[in-house]
């Protein structure tokens, strides 16, 4: 299969030094996108790590340059698409069939995509496409520990 070069995406950078581990990004993400809060409704994952004595922290979708999720989607460009403005690899909720292939393909140990089993759709960071003011997680972080790195930036 040929894989054409995809446009780079903007992404959210987490600044550990400023993060107070309050989890507001996680709850705001679910609130904005799903109108309800639960861990599986947020596109932001969380590492607890209390038993390991490590810093509790959020995990964000990297909006990979080579997005395995995108390539794995059986409805590529229909259900898992590329945003023409931000480059975000996003899921069209109306088209997603909840097959879970994108989650399987995500290369990270803690998968950055969730499954809403009830609605049978995958939940993935879309950088809050179309939201005035940009991604909601960045907006509610009062420590400014989250930074939207726009494409072409850095």
């Amino acid at each position, binding site marked *: 299969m040929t894989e054409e070069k995809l446009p780079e995406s903007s992404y959210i950078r987490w600044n*550990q*030094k*400023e*993060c*107070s*581990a*309050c*989890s*507001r990004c996680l*709850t*705001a993400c679910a*609130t*904005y996108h*799903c*109108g*309800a*809060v*639960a*861990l*599986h*409704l947020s596109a932001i994952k969380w*590492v*607890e*790590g*209390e*038993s*390991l*004595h*490590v*810093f*509790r922290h959020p995990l964000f979708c990297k909006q990979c340059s080579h997005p395995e999720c995108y390539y794995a989607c059986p409805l590529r460009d229909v259900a898992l698409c590329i945003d023409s403005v931000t480059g975000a690899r996003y899921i069209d909720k109306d088209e997603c069939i909840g097959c879970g292939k994108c989650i399987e393909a995500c290369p990270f140990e803690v998968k950055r995509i969730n499954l809403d*089993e*009830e609605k049978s759709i995958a939940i993935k960071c879309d950088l809050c496409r179309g939201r005035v003011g940009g991604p*909601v997680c960045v*907006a*509610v972080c*009062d*420590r*400014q520990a989250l930074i939207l790195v726009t494409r072409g930036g850095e």
Partner: protein
Amino acid sequence: MYGGYVGKILRIDLASGAVNKLNTLNYVPHFIGGIGLGYRLLWDEIKKDTTEWSSENALIFTSGPCCGTPVPTSGRAEVIGLAPQGYPIPWAAVSGFGGDFGPKMKFAGYDAIIISGKATSPKYLFVSETEVQLLDAEFLWGLTNYSTQDALLSRHGDDVAIACIGPAGENRVRWAAIMSKRKNAAGQGGFGAVMGDKKLKAIVVKPGSVEVPIARPDKLLAEVQKVSAEMSPKGQNRNPLFTDTGRYTIRRASCAYSGCTASINACLPCYFNGVPLKYTGYGSMSGSLYCAGAAANAFLLKSGYSQEVNFEIGKLVDQLGLNAWEAFVGMNWFLQNCNNAGKLPKIMGEAVELNRNGPAVYPKTELNAGFTAELAVKWLRGVALREGEGDVWAEGTPRGAEMVGLSGEVWRTHKHGYGPHWDGRYLHFIHYPVWVVSALSWATQGRDPFNQEHGYVERYTSFVKEWSNQSLWATDTIPYREICRAGAKIYGVQYANEGWDKPELGYVDKEYVAVWHNHRAIIKSSIPVCDRQFPLLYDPDKEDKIGDVDAEVRLFNAVVGTDWSLDEMNKAAERVFNVMRALHVRQGRNRKHDESILRYYEQPANWPDEPGPQTMDVNKFLDLLDRFYKLRGWDKDTGCPTRAKLEELGLKDIADGLASKRQTGG
């Protein structure tokens, strides 16, 4: 359908293992959630003769509708029950804690958990979306709070939240705490002892796919941003989170569901100052392994010890599962007073001489009791394990004092069973007439004076320019005259904040201030949000200097979907306050118990250079208490809520419950 609630309350009888599920919507939104829901459930659970050690005694864990949402500081759970620390009767009381127990209890499907009955052998409760299991805890019995949690996290996964007890709770120490993670504690009340009495070592909640619905998501997110900005004093969020170049970690936290933390209930702006770096490592968060700083712990040890030693004593308290507030700001000062009076030459069998410049000696105040580290360790371990004389002090200050013939000394530091807290005599040297309101609140509480009203006494005090050397908040300040003008509008009475420079006004209108803050205390611990931050009373940048006083109501409405005004929310809070009072009355509370605080205020406040009086004017205070009862709709002689008041609040069943005891006072 309302947002915010997940709809079910879990009830388990530890004796039979029977589990039922109640419908939350039978109780909300009219009891709000949190402590409001908790007090109502407690009324239904227990009887007049139920004691803290009765089998039918219930220990109730609740959250509120805003818990688990992006509402700042909402990551709180509340514990409600008959408090072993209460004296002479274990008054119904509450104690809150931060962290992730509240949200994860909801993600597992429950707004509250009611624990009734006693197990015959050590157990822990595991609750998930699909399971409620009472599991064997023999292997955990005797372990410290930290080891207990490590074992449970290994077994059930890192994502669970845990509330547990250490050895102090197991041994029914009347000031044993319930701990969650390294840093969150429900300390006051001694509810850890109730868990121990029930042989319940821990509650483990596993988050599932249960959703907390948000009625108005866009509105909520806008309010979250607005309120978050308002509650952070200028520049606070720009302070460095931690410094890792020196010896100690400084960390300031913002909270959503990591909420408030620490064994002393510190919360935003949590100042975890002074955590030795060797415990945290570079670039890590102090809170993950150890959290709260050494500030409170320093009240126990004599001066001269390093931060490390103070910190380690604090962590010993957490591990044993003692109430740090009582250890560092309660019993320690009682023991110090007795020692200084020559009535307690030995502690834990050792001849000691504690700090003679006690915490209430002006102007040479030294805020430490003067223990050596060795004595502190011996005493704390002795109490938690009930070894030797520790067995006496495990019974708490007033009961322990009775056992060793020192009852006559208790009045200096303890009332209703609790030590000082924002009353203007020990530790928090607040100005007249702030402590008049504090006294009025303490009179009618089941617990310490301003246990949930920091928003008044701490924030208000810190905003007054003339008192700004007391500021803990790094805010801009406001001249006292302007604060008085703002107060008149906030409380709706002319002399609400008056009295500091016009002493004759010190007792005027103060009943309105007390009632207002009684209700705000219930609102913030019910929706729930941080006690130290809310209500947002003053704002130096506003022309009228009035802060965002209805922030909690707007947050609640956006989550729940109601359109309550502040008046309607206050009515719900008044309902809760009267349920609390009815619980106390059913336990035997009367006006005499309320007046028991009077003698405490014979001790002077420490501002002899100021125009106001330094001690309580008893007659003026009794008159103020009369007016408070009248405003509350309580009987003047008994302090019992009248039937008319209870029925007005929709509490006819409670009026009937009290009437059978002829306690409704007409």
